[in-house]
């Protein structure tokens, strides 16, 4: 449904984006009660770099894929499902399993060689430095 109308009659530009994310979640068979975007992220910025933190409990380094193309960051990964035997039953099931994928458009191109990624206690911390060419240049004014 492209260009869903809000009740007020205005066009909702985010509707298409949400629709796409929903379709992507279904495509990757992500089972998660009532969720949309996984993982939730916090983004910190300053002039020199962007730091992205994400909570990805239970995801191992081997199940994680981080890639950068220009100024687009893509995070892919998977959370394994527990294997239960026939006589074992769930009393409660709240955790998500399956694949996930998210992309973000950053405010600048990234210096790919100096990306720092840490995965500790289930929290991912990505430091993405601004590419040299993208750094603001000071222009001297001669009188």
């Amino acid at each position, binding site marked *: 449904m492209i260009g869903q109308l809000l009740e007020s009659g205005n066009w909702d530009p*985010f509707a298409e984006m949400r629709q796409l994310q929903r379709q992507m979640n279904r495509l990757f068979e992500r089972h998660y009660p009532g969720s949309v975007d996984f993982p939730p992220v916090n983004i910190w910025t*300053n002039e020199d770099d962007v730091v992205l933190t994400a909570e990805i*409990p239970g995801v191992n380094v081997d199940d994680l894929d981080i890639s950068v193309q220009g100024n687009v960051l893509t995070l892919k990964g998977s959370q394994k499902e527990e294997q239960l035997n026939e006589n074992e039953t769930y009393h409660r099931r709240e955790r998500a399993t399956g694949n996930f994928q998210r992309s973000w458009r950053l405010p600048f191109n990234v210096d790919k060689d100096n990306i720092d990624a840490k995965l500790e*206690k289930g929290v991912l911390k990505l430091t993405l430095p601004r590419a040299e060419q993208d750094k603001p240049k000071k222009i001297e004014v001669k009188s």
Partner: protein
Amino acid sequence: MAEQTKTIQKQEAKRKEGIERTRDRMTFMPRTDIYERENDYVLIAEMPGVDHDAVDINFDNNELTITGHVDERPIEGHSISYSEYEVGDYQRSFRFSGDVDIDKIDAKMANGVLRLILPKNEESKPKKITVKSG
């Protein structure tokens, strides 16, 4: 106003009437899976940001309480541009039926996930009763 993208909301932990926590910060309920096997229960709770020595497990009168403390500080020299999740401690309680062997509870913490194995008491384990003819 455009509708915001819905993100995973952390549920705030339930609080007993009138009792507050000593720390003045948010406390959330960790997402938890519990399944029952023949000889034990397995409880898996997600507590990202919690170190294995920052977990507190209490089993009292068939009530299991798990608490996790997070030591996360804001990123130095940066300001937050976009936030989808809040950082806080974790706490949740579960009532078990009276068949857990408390002394044998096993706890492991890795990648922000707590795995608890709660073995069943000898008496509660399924026993085979052979029927003799006569």
